[in-house]
């Protein structure tokens, strides 16, 4: 009983409104592009050019060789300090993140048993950065030691040599997982937050009452919202993928069509949540707050977008199972960085499909063409 004419009318109205309403533009275009730029260019968890204080108590060939090894790497930006007091002061003031301290007997004791001539002090406040710094520093030290031993004709064997292989994101760039994950956040913004806002606005302004008094059916009203915002969300997704691949150089190993497919499915889930929120709230302010708390924040924090789900407490891990963004983020990471891995795609897609059916079904069930 769906009339093409009515659908066209409703959809045209929706597009005109999106185009003329600054808030739709803000959520659908400004915020996604802003987020993409911040995550693509700005935010990074990788440590690079970390300012580090070098305190060398007695300069000699050994210390020069070792500090040279530090300077060669991108990770650190070493700054020489005359003594520990100054270096510690600099660390307290936040000028340096770590201090590498080579004692006066560094050159002498280095080949002596039990010598521990080098000390690394890191600022532990940002635990993540601290861990990365000490990891890098240990790596530099081990490599240098071996080379130095060889250079000085000393035989030296480290009992176990670690050979690490990183799969999928071999350069270990955080951008490569942050930008794809961001697509889930952007689509949540358009699908759930924007939809919740525009539908509740119709209730608030009384336009819903006028619509309902016409022979339009509830399914037509719902489809008249879903289709335009679906297209808008798809546009946001295409824009994000294009920026990710061409601007930020994130590799897309999987199939684009598969990505398009799962993104569409996720968009349906988000739209379902947005419509549900607006049907319950019927007020822009309440709808926006609920949408923030139940869709936006979880997509940011509980989806595995930034924080690893496996490390969360059991209870929180359990909660993440009801967060649709979780499944979508897993799909995005895999499709972008690993490829078409069916054993990941099938279960996650299935979960999204079930959620889409659930939310859409619920929306259709509770939406009545009545005001009470």
């Amino acid at each position, binding site marked *: 009983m769906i*009339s093409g*004419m*009515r659908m*066209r*009318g*409703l959809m*045209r*109205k929706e597009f*005109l*409104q999106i185009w*003329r*309403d600054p808030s739709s533009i803000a959520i659908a275009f400004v915020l996604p592009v802003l987020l993409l730029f911040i995550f693509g260019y700005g935010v990074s968890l990788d440590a690079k050019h970390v300012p580090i204080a070098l305190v060398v108590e007695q300069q000699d060939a050994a210390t020069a060789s070792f500090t040279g090894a530090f300077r060669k790497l991108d990770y650190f930006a070493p700054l020489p300090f005359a003594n520990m007091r100054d270096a510690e002061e600099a660390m307290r003031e936040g000028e340096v993140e770590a201090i590498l301290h080579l004692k006066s007997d560094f050159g002498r004791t280095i080949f002596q048993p039990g010598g521990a001539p080098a000390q690394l002090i890191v600022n532990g406040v940002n635990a993540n950065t601290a861990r990365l710094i000490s990891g890098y520093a240990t790596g530099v030290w081990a490599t240098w030691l071996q080379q130095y031993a060889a250079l000085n004709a000393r035989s030296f064997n480290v009992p176990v040599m670690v050979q690490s292989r990183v799969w999928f994101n071999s350069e270990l760039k955080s951008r490569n997982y942050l930008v794809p994950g961001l697509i889930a956040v952007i689509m949540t913004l358009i699908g759930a937050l924007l939809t919740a806002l525009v539908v509740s606005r*119709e209730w608030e*302004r*009384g*336009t*819903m*009452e*006028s*619509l*309902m*008094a*016409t*022979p*339009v*059916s509830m399914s037509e009203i719902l489809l008249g919202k879903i289709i335009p915002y679906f297209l808008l969300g798809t546009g946001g997704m295409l824009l994000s993928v294009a920026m990710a691949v061409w601007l930020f150089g994130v590799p897309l190993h999987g199939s684009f069509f598969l990505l398009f497919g799962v993104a569409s499915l996720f968009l349906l889930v988000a739209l379902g949540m947005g419509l549900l929120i607006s049907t319950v709230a019927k007020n822009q302010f309440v709808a926006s707050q609920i949408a923030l708390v139940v869709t936006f924040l979880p997509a940011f924090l509980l989806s595995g977008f930034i924080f690893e789900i496996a490390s969360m407490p059991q209870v929180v891990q359990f909660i993440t199972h009801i967060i649709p963004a979780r499944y979508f983020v897993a799909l995005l990471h895999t499709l972008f960085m690993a490829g078409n891995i069916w054993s990941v795609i099938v279960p996650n897609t299935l979960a999204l499909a079930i959620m889409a059916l659930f939310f859409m079904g619920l929306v259709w069930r509770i939406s009545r*063409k*009545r*005001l*009470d």
Partner: protein
Amino acid sequence: MTEIIVAEPVAVFTGVGKSFVAGKRRVEALRGVSARLRAGCVTGLIGPDGAGKTTLMRLLAGLLKPDAGEIHVLGQDVIGEPLRVQQSLGYMPQRFGLYEDLSVQENLDLYADLQCVAHAARPERYAELMHMTGLAPFTHRLAGQLSGGMKQKLGLACALVRSPKLLLLDEPTAGVDPVSRRELWEIVYRQVEQAGMSVLFSTAYLDEAERCDDLLLLHQGQLLGQGKPAEFSSRMQGRIFNVSNGSESRRRLQQQLVQQESVLDALIQGEAVRLVMHEGRSPQGEVWAKGLKIEQAAPRFEDAFVAMLGGVGAIAPEAVHAAATVTAKNGPVIEVADLSRNFGEFQAVKSIGFHVERGEVFGLLGANGAGKSTTFRMLCGLLPASSGSLTVAGMNLRDAPASARSRIGYMSQRFSLYGTLSVLENLRFFSSVYGLSGKGRRARIDWAFERFDLHDIADTASDDLSLGYKQRLAMAAALLHEPDILFLDEPTSGVDPLARREFWQRINLLAEQGVTVLVTTHFMEEAEYCDRLVIMAEGSILASGTPQAIKQTAAATGEKVATMEDAFIALIQREAA
């Protein structure tokens, strides 16, 4: 055959009941309402605020499900088959849901699509509707940028886009100026005559009720009566009198008369006071009638309405005059000269001038968009003037010290109160910002509770109040600090006739005590209550003077001028021509 079809009622409801949960209370909006709406005629739905008018409209439109009873519209069961009914229904809600960021044309297109109007039929229908509503020059303007009257006309055009069999209009003329109102009704009546449409409308303007073919009178969710307006008013035959005297001011006379126990209602009309007597009573032979000129008058529907709802009752003048502090200094309180205001290219107010004397009730009238709100806002200091001079109590409120504002009281059409705050909290807040404290503050709040009868609702959030109570509270808040100038911006908009009467009684009392009142309104009978008024159109003053003088000016145009409304329309039309 045709006879029988015409006789078929367009809507039938039997034993309809509907209740809502508002806050914690259960409100019975409708109780056992049964009625039939005749086809091919205009039926009015009349009743005070909260009578259940909107609920009834929504039930007919299939937007609500009744708790009890049956509703059939156009022979269909609305409860079971709302979509069928909605195909031949036009509905214009109270706040017509126009898409404000869509243009006039786009709004029409949307509703044409929703009603599945064939594309071939559209150009003709659009042209007709645009011609009727006079919106043709504005088809590309956004609906949000139209004036109030034009918005209502566009709403009507949208509801009429498919020429419905039944048209439901919920207060279509609220906040609309008399000219636009008249145009709106012309469109509606033309539809009834030409297309045989049936119309149900609700309104707060009782003169509109007078013109319809059938009336439903609703009160507290119950149907008090149904019939032709004449049937209602004929019951009042012999109870209506016009009373006047030569010397005393009509306002004082009205105050005096309304307190008499045999008088049900007293209203200022022209130079006289119109009395509605209690059943079986007559002014002849009453003590107070001595020396008054008394004429019997023809009853109107309004009289019947007031009588059926039991009248308003008199508000006793205050023992202590509210404005006792007003120093008797004669001379104009408000002076406006050569005042202009531009918004970009557009000149909203074009070099106007007038003055208001102490203790005067001064009316500022005009069509929607005539510049009266702009003038009003400039006077209150809410908007700077582009050029010209204006003084209120000798100062321009815009740059006068803040303390000068404590001499004015302000009440806007939206009854701007803090919705989540209770009545008491609202009063406490406004008294404090006006610098009242301690005993003085307590005394004034007690005064407000006493005078405005707010005791029962002291702890109710002001959002939950009925419109009439909101208006009372807004007025109480505006009077707490005993201002000697009162600015009232459409203070009775959307308020039912009883609440309006009560409101004007209070205004009259204040004016008698020397308070200067500046008021804007769309109710032309209220213009009669003013001492003097100006009528504005397109930023300029068309006429000014006493109501009588304005009627005379209007009569000079050659139109038949019986009421203020006729005068207003005649003047506006002369200007437009």
